[in-house]
Protein backbone atom coordinates (compact mmCIF):
# COMPACT_ATOMS: atom_id res chain seq x y z
CA UNK A 1 0.00 0.00 0.00
CA UNK A 2 0.94 3.62 0.13
CA UNK A 3 1.37 4.00 -3.60
CA UNK A 4 0.01 7.51 -3.63
CA UNK A 5 0.70 9.53 -6.72
CA UNK A 6 1.94 12.78 -5.33
CA UNK A 7 4.84 15.09 -5.65
CA UNK A 8 5.39 15.32 -1.94
CA UNK A 9 5.35 12.41 0.44
CA UNK A 10 3.62 12.29 3.77
CA UNK A 11 6.43 10.10 4.99
CA UNK A 12 8.78 13.06 4.84
CA UNK A 13 6.40 15.24 6.81
CA UNK A 14 5.74 12.53 9.32
CA UNK A 15 9.41 12.42 10.25
CA UNK A 16 9.06 16.03 11.42
CA UNK A 17 6.76 14.93 14.27
CA UNK A 18 8.66 13.17 17.06
CA UNK A 19 5.55 11.98 18.90
CA UNK A 20 4.42 9.96 15.91
CA UNK A 21 7.48 7.79 16.10
CA UNK A 22 6.49 5.48 18.93
CA UNK A 23 4.62 2.32 19.79
CA UNK A 24 1.60 1.95 22.01
CA UNK A 25 0.62 -1.47 23.32
CA UNK A 26 3.48 -2.82 21.26
CA UNK A 27 2.04 -1.51 18.00
CA UNK A 28 3.23 1.40 15.89
CA UNK A 29 1.18 4.46 16.74
CA UNK A 30 -1.38 5.48 14.11
CA UNK A 31 -2.58 8.90 15.17
CA UNK A 32 -6.03 9.68 13.79
CA UNK A 33 -7.14 12.24 16.36
CA UNK A 34 -5.69 15.47 15.04
CA UNK A 35 -9.07 17.17 15.11
CA UNK A 36 -8.97 16.94 18.90
CA UNK A 37 -5.37 18.05 19.10
CA UNK A 38 -2.67 17.85 16.47
CA UNK A 39 0.89 16.73 17.13
CA UNK A 40 3.68 19.27 17.06
CA UNK A 41 6.63 19.24 14.68
CA UNK A 42 10.16 19.39 16.09
CA UNK A 43 10.36 22.94 14.75
CA UNK A 44 7.67 24.01 17.23
CA UNK A 45 9.01 22.00 20.14
CA UNK A 46 12.50 23.38 19.54
CA UNK A 47 11.34 26.97 19.16
CA UNK A 48 9.56 26.79 22.51
CA UNK A 49 12.56 25.17 24.18
CA UNK A 50 14.97 27.71 22.71
CA UNK A 51 12.80 30.56 23.87
CA UNK A 52 12.61 29.10 27.38
CA UNK A 53 16.34 28.49 27.54
CA UNK A 54 17.56 31.72 26.05
CA UNK A 55 15.03 34.48 25.69
CA UNK A 56 12.41 34.26 28.37
CA UNK A 57 11.30 37.40 30.20
CA UNK A 58 8.04 39.32 30.43
CA UNK A 59 6.87 41.16 27.35
CA UNK A 60 6.20 44.86 26.77
CA UNK A 61 7.58 45.75 30.18
CA UNK A 62 11.29 45.77 30.61
CA UNK A 63 14.08 47.80 29.11
CA UNK A 64 16.47 44.92 29.53
CA UNK A 65 17.70 42.67 26.74
CA UNK A 66 15.74 39.54 27.50
CA UNK A 67 12.49 41.42 27.79
CA UNK A 68 13.21 42.98 24.45
CA UNK A 69 13.91 39.58 22.89
CA UNK A 70 10.78 38.07 24.39
CA UNK A 71 8.72 40.95 23.06
CA UNK A 72 10.25 40.59 19.62
CA UNK A 73 9.54 36.88 19.57
CA UNK A 74 5.96 37.32 20.78
CA UNK A 75 5.13 40.18 18.45
CA UNK A 76 6.97 38.46 15.63
CA UNK A 77 4.57 35.53 16.00
CA UNK A 78 1.63 37.93 15.75
CA UNK A 79 3.00 39.19 12.44
CA UNK A 80 3.37 35.66 11.16
CA UNK A 81 -0.22 34.85 12.09
CA UNK A 82 -1.41 38.02 10.37
CA UNK A 83 0.32 36.93 7.20
CA UNK A 84 -0.93 33.37 7.51
CA UNK A 85 -4.60 34.34 7.43
CA UNK A 86 -3.98 37.49 5.38
CA UNK A 87 -5.45 39.97 7.84
CA UNK A 88 -5.03 43.59 6.83
CA UNK A 89 -3.31 44.67 10.00
CA UNK A 90 -1.59 43.22 13.05
CA UNK A 91 -4.07 45.19 15.16
CA UNK A 92 -6.67 42.70 14.07
CA UNK A 93 -4.85 39.71 15.58
CA UNK A 94 -5.91 39.28 19.22
CA UNK A 95 -4.00 36.48 20.93
CA UNK A 96 -6.17 34.36 23.23
CA UNK A 97 -5.99 30.99 24.95
CA UNK A 98 -7.95 29.31 22.18
CA UNK A 99 -11.10 29.27 20.09
CA UNK A 100 -13.22 29.02 23.22
CA UNK A 101 -11.86 32.23 24.68
CA UNK A 102 -12.04 33.98 21.32
CA UNK A 103 -15.75 33.24 20.97
CA UNK A 104 -16.50 34.18 24.57
CA UNK A 105 -14.67 37.45 23.99
CA UNK A 106 -16.95 38.30 21.10
CA UNK A 107 -20.07 37.24 23.00
CA UNK A 108 -19.23 39.31 26.05
CA UNK A 109 -17.45 42.29 24.60
CA UNK A 110 -19.15 42.74 21.26
CA UNK A 111 -22.64 41.32 21.81
CA UNK A 112 -23.46 41.81 25.45
CA UNK A 113 -23.40 45.62 25.54
CA UNK A 114 -25.44 45.87 22.34
CA UNK A 115 -27.97 43.04 22.47
CA UNK A 116 -31.59 43.98 23.16
CA UNK A 117 -34.32 41.64 24.31
CA UNK A 118 -35.79 40.00 21.22
CA UNK A 119 -32.57 40.24 19.22
CA UNK A 120 -31.32 36.94 17.82
CA UNK A 121 -28.02 35.13 17.54
CA UNK A 122 -28.08 32.66 14.65
CA UNK A 123 -25.93 29.53 14.74
CA UNK A 124 -26.21 26.12 13.08
CA UNK A 125 -27.03 22.63 14.30
CA UNK A 126 -23.51 21.31 13.76
CA UNK A 127 -21.58 23.61 16.07
CA UNK A 128 -19.09 22.63 18.74
CA UNK A 129 -20.25 23.49 22.27
CA UNK A 130 -17.73 26.36 22.17
CA UNK A 131 -19.87 27.98 19.50
CA UNK A 132 -23.15 27.32 21.34
CA UNK A 133 -22.73 27.91 25.06
CA UNK A 134 -21.13 31.40 24.94
CA UNK A 135 -24.16 32.56 22.92
CA UNK A 136 -26.58 30.92 25.34
CA UNK A 137 -24.89 32.76 28.18
CA UNK A 138 -25.11 36.14 26.51
CA UNK A 139 -28.72 35.47 25.49
CA UNK A 140 -29.58 34.75 29.11
CA UNK A 141 -27.84 37.92 30.17
CA UNK A 142 -29.62 40.13 27.66
CA UNK A 143 -32.96 38.52 26.83
CA UNK A 144 -31.83 37.78 23.30
CA UNK A 145 -32.75 34.53 21.59
CA UNK A 146 -30.52 31.80 20.16
CA UNK A 147 -31.81 30.38 16.89
CA UNK A 148 -30.42 27.39 15.05
CA UNK A 149 -30.21 26.67 11.35
CA UNK A 150 -30.99 23.00 10.59
CA UNK A 151 -28.77 20.38 9.01
CA UNK A 152 -29.81 17.57 6.69
CA UNK A 153 -29.23 13.81 6.87
CA UNK A 154 -25.87 14.18 5.18
CA UNK A 155 -24.81 16.59 7.90
CA UNK A 156 -24.86 19.67 5.70
CA UNK A 157 -26.07 23.11 6.64
CA UNK A 158 -28.79 23.95 4.18
CA UNK A 159 -28.10 27.40 2.92
CA UNK A 160 -31.69 28.26 2.05
CA UNK A 161 -33.00 27.25 5.45
CA UNK A 162 -30.30 29.32 7.09
CA UNK A 163 -31.02 32.35 4.95
CA UNK A 164 -34.75 31.98 5.67
CA UNK A 165 -34.00 32.49 9.34
CA UNK A 166 -32.33 35.83 8.77
CA UNK A 167 -34.52 38.80 9.63
CA UNK A 168 -34.01 42.26 11.06
CA UNK A 169 -33.64 40.94 14.59
CA UNK A 170 -30.60 38.78 13.78
CA UNK A 171 -27.71 40.53 15.46
CA UNK A 172 -24.89 38.13 14.66
CA UNK A 173 -24.32 34.84 12.85
CA UNK A 174 -21.86 32.34 14.29
CA UNK A 175 -20.92 29.24 12.33
CA UNK A 176 -18.17 26.70 11.92
CA UNK A 177 -15.93 26.77 8.89
CA UNK A 178 -15.48 23.01 9.21
CA UNK A 179 -17.64 20.97 11.60
CA UNK A 180 -15.57 19.06 14.12
CA UNK A 181 -17.86 16.05 14.59
CA UNK A 182 -18.84 15.63 10.95
CA UNK A 183 -16.12 17.21 8.86
CA UNK A 184 -18.66 19.24 6.88
CA UNK A 185 -17.17 22.24 5.14
CA UNK A 186 -19.86 24.88 5.60
CA UNK A 187 -20.93 27.40 2.96
CA UNK A 188 -19.41 30.28 4.91
CA UNK A 189 -18.66 32.41 1.85
CA UNK A 190 -22.30 32.53 0.81
CA UNK A 191 -23.53 33.15 4.34
CA UNK A 192 -21.05 35.98 4.78
CA UNK A 193 -22.05 37.49 1.45
CA UNK A 194 -25.73 37.56 2.41
CA UNK A 195 -25.00 38.78 5.89
CA UNK A 196 -22.82 41.61 4.58
CA UNK A 197 -25.65 42.81 2.39
CA UNK A 198 -27.85 43.07 5.45
CA UNK A 199 -25.17 44.49 7.70
CA UNK A 200 -25.13 41.48 10.03
CA UNK A 201 -21.73 40.61 11.55
CA UNK A 202 -20.49 37.04 11.12
CA UNK A 203 -18.17 35.04 13.36
CA UNK A 204 -16.53 31.99 11.84
CA UNK A 205 -15.37 29.25 14.20
CA UNK A 206 -12.24 28.28 12.32
CA UNK A 207 -10.83 25.77 14.81
CA UNK A 208 -11.11 23.01 12.19
CA UNK A 209 -10.74 25.31 9.20
CA UNK A 210 -7.29 26.78 9.70
CA UNK A 211 -5.45 23.44 9.98
CA UNK A 212 -6.81 22.15 6.68
CA UNK A 213 -7.80 25.01 4.39
CA UNK A 214 -6.03 28.01 2.96
CA UNK A 215 -7.80 30.69 4.98
CA UNK A 216 -7.81 34.31 3.82
CA UNK A 217 -9.93 36.47 6.11
CA UNK A 218 -10.03 39.37 3.68
CA UNK A 219 -11.28 37.17 0.87
CA UNK A 220 -13.81 35.60 3.24
CA UNK A 221 -14.81 39.08 4.37
CA UNK A 222 -15.97 37.85 7.77
CA UNK A 223 -16.01 40.10 10.83
CA UNK A 224 -14.53 37.61 13.27
CA UNK A 225 -12.54 34.42 12.77
CA UNK A 226 -11.58 32.30 15.80
CA UNK A 227 -9.08 29.45 15.97
CA UNK A 228 -6.81 27.43 18.27
CA UNK A 229 -3.05 26.89 18.18
CA UNK A 230 -3.12 23.26 19.25
CA UNK A 231 -5.20 22.15 16.29
CA UNK A 232 -2.74 23.71 13.86
CA UNK A 233 0.33 21.90 15.20
CA UNK A 234 1.16 24.56 17.79
CA UNK A 235 1.08 24.52 21.59
CA UNK A 236 -2.05 24.25 23.71
CA UNK A 237 -3.27 27.37 25.46
CA UNK A 238 -2.81 29.56 22.40
CA UNK A 239 -5.41 30.87 20.04
CA UNK A 240 -6.45 33.77 17.91
CA UNK A 241 -9.37 36.06 17.47
CA UNK A 242 -9.22 37.86 14.17
CA UNK A 243 -11.56 40.84 14.19
CA UNK A 244 -12.19 43.56 11.66
CA UNK A 245 -10.34 46.58 12.98
CA UNK A 246 -13.27 49.01 13.00
CA UNK A 247 -15.35 46.53 15.01
CA UNK A 248 -12.61 45.69 17.50
CA UNK A 249 -12.02 49.40 17.95
CA UNK A 250 -15.61 50.00 18.97
CA UNK A 251 -15.62 47.15 21.50
CA UNK A 252 -14.92 47.61 25.21
CA UNK A 253 -12.10 45.53 26.73
CA UNK A 254 -12.76 41.93 27.67
CA UNK A 255 -10.71 41.64 30.81
CA UNK A 256 -8.92 44.30 32.83
CA UNK A 257 -5.32 44.24 33.99
CA UNK A 258 -1.80 44.96 32.92
CA UNK A 259 -0.86 45.45 29.27
CA UNK A 260 -4.34 46.45 28.20
CA UNK A 261 -4.01 49.99 29.55
CA UNK A 262 -2.18 53.14 28.58
CA UNK A 263 -2.74 55.05 31.76
CA UNK A 264 -4.39 54.13 35.01
CA UNK A 265 -5.51 56.39 37.80
CA UNK A 266 -8.28 55.69 40.26
CA UNK A 267 -10.57 58.06 38.39
CA UNK A 268 -10.09 56.76 34.92
CA UNK A 269 -8.19 54.27 32.87
CA UNK A 270 -7.23 54.86 29.29
CA UNK A 271 -7.20 51.62 27.36
CA UNK A 272 -4.34 50.57 25.21
CA UNK A 273 -4.57 50.47 21.45
CA UNK A 274 -5.49 47.38 19.45
CA UNK A 275 -4.88 44.54 19.85
CA UNK A 276 -3.45 45.03 23.36
CA UNK A 277 -6.78 46.34 24.63
CA UNK A 278 -7.94 42.70 24.60
CA UNK A 279 -4.81 41.12 26.04
CA UNK A 280 -4.82 41.74 29.77
CA UNK A 281 -2.08 40.23 31.87
CA UNK A 282 1.07 38.33 31.03
CA UNK A 283 0.26 36.21 27.99
CA UNK A 284 1.32 32.68 27.06
CA UNK A 285 4.58 33.93 25.57
CA UNK A 286 6.31 30.62 24.95
CA UNK A 287 3.13 29.13 23.51
CA UNK A 288 2.75 32.01 21.09
CA UNK A 289 6.39 31.67 20.07
CA UNK A 290 5.59 28.03 19.30
CA UNK A 291 2.50 29.04 17.37
CA UNK A 292 4.66 31.37 15.27
CA UNK A 293 6.95 28.42 14.54
CA UNK A 294 3.91 26.32 13.57
CA UNK A 295 2.89 28.99 11.08
CA UNK A 296 6.39 29.01 9.59
CA UNK A 297 6.31 25.25 9.35
CA UNK A 298 2.90 25.15 7.65
CA UNK A 299 3.94 27.86 5.23
CA UNK A 300 7.09 25.94 4.36
CA UNK A 301 4.84 23.18 3.03
CA UNK A 302 2.08 25.48 1.83
CA UNK A 303 -1.58 25.28 2.80
CA UNK A 304 -2.76 24.62 -0.77
CA UNK A 305 -0.43 21.58 -0.90
CA UNK A 306 -1.69 20.39 2.48
CA UNK A 307 -5.32 20.86 1.50
CA UNK A 308 -4.86 18.95 -1.75
CA UNK A 309 -3.01 16.06 -0.12
CA UNK A 310 -5.50 15.77 2.74
CA UNK A 311 -8.51 15.91 0.47
CA UNK A 312 -7.26 12.94 -1.50
CA UNK A 313 -6.44 11.02 1.66
CA UNK A 314 -9.83 11.85 3.15
CA UNK A 315 -11.67 10.63 0.08
CA UNK A 316 -9.63 7.45 0.15
CA UNK A 317 -10.41 6.93 3.85
CA UNK A 318 -14.13 7.34 3.24
CA UNK A 319 -14.05 4.89 0.36
CA UNK A 320 -12.17 2.31 2.44
CA UNK A 321 -14.45 2.70 5.45
CA UNK A 322 -17.53 2.29 3.27
CA UNK A 323 -16.26 -1.17 2.36
CA UNK A 324 -16.12 -2.37 5.95
CA UNK A 325 -19.10 -4.60 6.77
CA UNK A 326 -21.38 -3.22 9.44
CA UNK A 327 -20.16 0.33 8.83
CA UNK A 328 -22.48 3.29 9.34
CA UNK A 329 -20.93 6.58 8.29
CA UNK A 330 -22.19 9.62 10.17
CA UNK A 331 -21.69 12.77 8.16
CA UNK A 332 -21.64 12.38 4.42
CA UNK A 333 -21.57 15.98 3.29
CA UNK A 334 -20.60 16.52 -0.30
CA UNK A 335 -17.91 18.92 0.81
CA UNK A 336 -15.89 17.58 3.73
CA UNK A 337 -12.44 17.94 5.19
CA UNK A 338 -10.25 15.61 7.21
CA UNK A 339 -12.86 13.99 9.43
CA UNK A 340 -15.07 10.90 9.30
CA UNK A 341 -17.44 9.91 12.09
CA UNK A 342 -18.83 6.39 12.09
CA UNK A 343 -20.34 3.52 14.03
CA UNK A 344 -19.59 -0.14 13.54
CA UNK A 345 -22.41 -2.66 14.00
CA UNK A 346 -23.84 -2.07 17.44
CA UNK A 347 -20.46 -1.75 19.09
CA UNK A 348 -20.42 1.17 21.50
CA UNK A 349 -17.96 3.86 20.44
CA UNK A 350 -15.93 3.57 23.63
CA UNK A 351 -15.49 -0.15 23.23
CA UNK A 352 -14.36 0.40 19.69
CA UNK A 353 -12.01 3.18 20.80
CA UNK A 354 -10.38 0.88 23.35
CA UNK A 355 -10.03 -1.98 20.89
CA UNK A 356 -8.46 0.30 18.28
CA UNK A 357 -6.13 1.83 20.85
CA UNK A 358 -4.94 -1.62 21.56
CA UNK A 359 -3.88 -1.97 17.98
CA UNK A 360 -2.05 1.33 18.09
CA UNK A 361 -4.83 3.28 16.38
CA UNK A 362 -5.84 6.48 18.18
CA UNK A 363 -9.30 7.79 17.34
CA UNK A 364 -11.74 9.97 19.23
CA UNK A 365 -14.93 8.52 20.63
CA UNK A 366 -18.00 10.04 22.25
CA UNK A 367 -20.00 13.16 21.55
CA UNK A 368 -17.09 15.35 20.36
CA UNK A 369 -18.46 18.36 22.25
CA UNK A 370 -21.28 18.47 19.74
CA UNK A 371 -24.20 16.87 21.57
CA UNK A 372 -26.87 18.45 19.34
CA UNK A 373 -25.24 16.71 16.36
CA UNK A 374 -25.42 13.38 18.22
CA UNK A 375 -29.08 14.04 19.05
CA UNK A 376 -29.79 14.81 15.40
CA UNK A 377 -28.39 11.44 14.34
CA UNK A 378 -29.98 9.70 17.32
CA UNK A 379 -26.74 8.28 18.68
CA UNK A 380 -25.02 8.79 22.06
CA UNK A 381 -21.67 9.19 20.37
CA UNK A 382 -19.58 8.19 17.39
CA UNK A 383 -16.08 7.10 16.54
CA UNK A 384 -14.16 9.77 14.68
CA UNK A 385 -11.05 9.35 12.61
CA UNK A 386 -9.44 12.65 11.71
CA UNK A 387 -6.50 13.23 9.43
CA UNK A 388 -3.58 15.57 9.13
CA UNK A 389 -0.97 15.75 6.39
CA UNK A 390 1.31 13.47 8.43
CA UNK A 391 -1.10 10.59 7.88
CA UNK A 392 -0.91 8.33 4.86
CA UNK A 393 -2.68 5.45 3.17
CA UNK A 394 -0.97 2.88 5.34
CA UNK A 395 -2.62 4.50 8.35
CA UNK A 396 -5.99 4.01 6.72
CA UNK A 397 -5.19 0.34 6.11
CA UNK A 398 -4.26 -0.06 9.78
CA UNK A 399 -7.53 1.57 10.76
CA UNK A 400 -9.52 -0.74 8.54
CA UNK A 401 -7.64 -3.81 9.78
CA UNK A 402 -8.25 -2.78 13.38
CA UNK A 403 -11.96 -2.36 12.67
CA UNK A 404 -12.10 -5.84 11.16
CA UNK A 405 -10.48 -7.23 14.30
CA UNK A 406 -13.00 -5.46 16.47
CA UNK A 407 -15.79 -7.11 14.52
CA UNK A 408 -14.23 -10.51 15.13
CA UNK A 409 -13.98 -9.84 18.85
CA UNK A 410 -17.61 -8.79 19.06
CA UNK A 411 -18.90 -11.33 16.57
Amino acid at each position, binding site marked *: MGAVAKTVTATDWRADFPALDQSVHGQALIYLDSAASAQQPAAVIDAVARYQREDHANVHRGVHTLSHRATEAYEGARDKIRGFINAKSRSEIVLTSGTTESINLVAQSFCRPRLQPGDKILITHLEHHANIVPWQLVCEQTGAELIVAPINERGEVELDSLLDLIDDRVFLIGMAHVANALGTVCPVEKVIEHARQRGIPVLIDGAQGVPHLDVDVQALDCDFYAFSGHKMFGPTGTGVLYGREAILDAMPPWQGGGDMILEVSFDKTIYNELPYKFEAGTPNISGVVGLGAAVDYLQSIGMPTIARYEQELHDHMVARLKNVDGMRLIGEARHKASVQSFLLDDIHSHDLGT*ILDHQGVAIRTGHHCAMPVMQFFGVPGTCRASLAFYNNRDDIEQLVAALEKARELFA
Partner: protein
Amino acid sequence: MNDAARDMQDLYRELVIDHSRNPRHFGRLENATHTADGINPLCGDKLRLYFRVGAGGRIESSSFEGSGCAISIASASLLTEAVTGLEVDDAKHCSSTVTSRLTTAMPYADLDARLENLKALDGVRAYPSRVKCATLAWHALHAALSNDMKPATTE
Protein backbone atom coordinates in the same frame (compact mmCIF):
# COMPACT_ATOMS: atom_id res chain seq x y z
CA MET B 1 -2.20 -14.28 18.75
CA ASN B 2 -0.05 -11.34 19.79
CA ASP B 3 0.02 -9.72 23.24
CA ALA B 4 -2.28 -6.93 22.22
CA ALA B 5 -4.93 -9.34 21.03
CA ARG B 6 -4.62 -11.34 24.24
CA ASP B 7 -5.02 -8.21 26.33
CA MET B 8 -8.12 -7.32 24.39
CA GLN B 9 -9.61 -10.69 25.06
CA ASP B 10 -8.79 -10.20 28.70
CA LEU B 11 -10.84 -7.01 28.73
CA TYR B 12 -13.66 -8.29 26.57
CA ARG B 13 -13.98 -11.77 28.05
CA GLU B 14 -16.73 -13.98 26.74
CA LEU B 15 -18.84 -13.45 29.81
CA VAL B 16 -18.59 -9.67 29.38
CA ILE B 17 -19.56 -9.83 25.74
CA ASP B 18 -22.38 -12.21 26.59
CA HIS B 19 -23.82 -10.01 29.34
CA SER B 20 -23.50 -6.89 27.21
CA ARG B 21 -25.27 -8.59 24.32
CA ASN B 22 -27.94 -10.25 26.43
CA PRO B 23 -28.21 -8.25 29.61
CA ARG B 24 -30.01 -10.09 32.42
CA HIS B 25 -32.85 -8.45 34.34
CA PHE B 26 -33.00 -5.67 31.80
CA GLY B 27 -35.97 -3.32 32.09
CA ARG B 28 -37.97 -1.43 34.60
CA LEU B 29 -38.91 -3.16 37.84
CA GLU B 30 -42.52 -2.58 38.87
CA ASN B 31 -43.01 -1.86 42.57
CA ALA B 32 -39.33 -1.20 43.16
CA THR B 33 -38.56 0.13 46.59
CA HIS B 34 -35.16 1.54 45.78
CA THR B 35 -33.82 3.08 42.63
CA ALA B 36 -30.91 5.25 41.52
CA ASP B 37 -29.35 6.57 38.35
CA GLY B 38 -25.73 6.22 37.40
CA ILE B 39 -24.25 8.66 34.92
CA ASN B 40 -20.80 8.63 33.41
CA PRO B 41 -20.53 12.07 31.84
CA LEU B 42 -17.37 11.26 29.92
CA CYS B 43 -18.75 8.24 28.09
CA GLY B 44 -22.41 9.11 28.14
CA ASP B 45 -23.25 5.86 29.96
CA LYS B 46 -26.61 6.16 31.69
CA LEU B 47 -28.02 3.44 33.91
CA ARG B 48 -31.03 3.21 36.18
CA LEU B 49 -31.02 0.47 38.78
CA TYR B 50 -34.14 -0.88 40.52
CA PHE B 51 -34.36 -3.00 43.64
CA ARG B 52 -37.28 -4.46 45.53
CA VAL B 53 -36.32 -4.90 49.15
CA GLY B 54 -38.64 -7.06 51.26
CA ALA B 55 -39.75 -6.42 54.80
CA GLY B 56 -36.88 -8.49 56.14
CA GLY B 57 -34.31 -6.28 54.44
CA ARG B 58 -33.52 -8.77 51.70
CA ILE B 59 -33.27 -7.82 48.02
CA GLU B 60 -36.04 -9.81 46.39
CA SER B 61 -35.41 -8.64 42.87
CA SER B 62 -33.29 -6.25 40.90
CA SER B 63 -33.19 -4.90 37.39
CA PHE B 64 -31.66 -2.14 35.36
CA GLU B 65 -32.19 -0.17 32.21
CA GLY B 66 -30.16 2.33 30.24
CA SER B 67 -27.47 2.54 27.63
CA GLY B 68 -23.74 2.41 27.62
CA CYS B 69 -20.67 0.59 26.47
CA ALA B 70 -20.23 -3.17 26.73
CA ILE B 71 -18.34 -2.88 30.00
CA SER B 72 -20.94 -0.77 31.78
CA ILE B 73 -23.86 -2.88 30.60
CA ALA B 74 -22.14 -6.16 31.43
CA SER B 75 -21.20 -4.87 34.85
CA ALA B 76 -24.78 -3.84 35.61
CA SER B 77 -26.11 -7.15 34.35
CA LEU B 78 -23.64 -9.13 36.46
CA LEU B 79 -24.57 -6.94 39.41
CA THR B 80 -28.25 -7.81 39.22
CA GLU B 81 -27.36 -11.50 39.24
CA ALA B 82 -24.96 -11.13 42.14
CA VAL B 83 -27.00 -9.12 44.60
CA THR B 84 -30.49 -10.54 44.21
CA GLY B 85 -31.21 -12.48 47.39
CA LEU B 86 -28.69 -10.61 49.50
CA GLU B 87 -29.35 -8.53 52.60
CA VAL B 88 -29.07 -4.83 51.87
CA ASP B 89 -25.97 -4.48 54.01
CA ASP B 90 -24.31 -7.42 52.29
CA ALA B 91 -25.11 -5.93 48.90
CA LYS B 92 -23.54 -2.65 49.91
CA HIS B 93 -20.55 -4.55 51.12
CA CYS B 94 -20.32 -6.26 47.74
CA SER B 95 -20.33 -2.86 46.10
CA SER B 96 -17.29 -1.78 48.12
CA THR B 97 -15.48 -5.03 47.50
CA VAL B 98 -16.05 -4.93 43.78
CA THR B 99 -15.13 -1.27 43.37
CA SER B 100 -11.97 -1.66 45.39
CA ARG B 101 -11.05 -4.78 43.46
CA LEU B 102 -11.37 -2.82 40.22
CA THR B 103 -9.77 0.41 41.36
CA THR B 104 -6.93 -0.43 43.70
CA ALA B 105 -3.87 -1.90 42.15
CA MET B 106 -2.86 -4.19 45.01
CA PRO B 107 -3.82 -6.26 46.79
CA TYR B 108 -6.75 -7.82 45.01
CA ALA B 109 -9.79 -7.66 47.21
CA ASP B 110 -11.03 -11.22 47.52
CA LEU B 111 -14.42 -12.10 46.14
CA ASP B 112 -16.56 -14.74 47.73
CA ALA B 113 -18.09 -17.50 45.68
CA ARG B 114 -21.26 -15.66 44.76
CA LEU B 115 -19.23 -12.88 43.21
CA GLU B 116 -17.11 -15.29 41.21
CA ASN B 117 -18.55 -14.09 37.88
CA LEU B 118 -17.46 -10.54 38.58
CA LYS B 119 -13.90 -11.60 38.05
CA ALA B 120 -14.80 -11.29 34.38
CA LEU B 121 -14.46 -7.53 34.85
CA ASP B 122 -10.88 -7.76 36.11
CA GLY B 123 -9.56 -6.86 32.66
CA VAL B 124 -10.49 -3.21 33.15
CA ARG B 125 -7.83 -2.81 35.80
CA ALA B 126 -5.37 -2.33 32.95
CA TYR B 127 -7.50 0.44 31.41
CA PRO B 128 -7.69 3.47 33.68
CA SER B 129 -10.03 5.23 31.28
CA ARG B 130 -12.48 2.33 31.39
CA VAL B 131 -12.56 1.52 35.10
CA LYS B 132 -15.36 4.02 35.57
CA CYS B 133 -17.50 2.14 33.08
CA ALA B 134 -17.22 -0.97 35.22
CA THR B 135 -17.81 0.72 38.57
CA LEU B 136 -20.75 2.87 37.49
CA ALA B 137 -23.48 0.35 38.30
CA TRP B 138 -21.91 -0.37 41.67
CA HIS B 139 -21.89 3.28 42.62
CA ALA B 140 -25.53 3.45 41.62
CA LEU B 141 -26.33 0.39 43.74
CA HIS B 142 -24.78 2.07 46.72
CA ALA B 143 -26.74 5.24 46.08
CA ALA B 144 -30.00 3.34 45.66
CA LEU B 145 -29.66 1.29 48.79
CA SER B 146 -28.54 4.27 50.81
CA ASN B 147 -31.73 5.94 49.65
CA ASP B 148 -29.64 8.70 48.32
CA MET B 149 -31.85 10.20 45.66
CA LYS B 150 -29.04 12.01 43.88
CA PRO B 151 -27.75 10.27 40.76
CA ALA B 152 -24.43 8.54 41.24
CA THR B 153 -21.76 9.76 38.91
CA THR B 154 -18.29 8.53 38.27
CA GLU B 155 -16.81 12.01 38.59
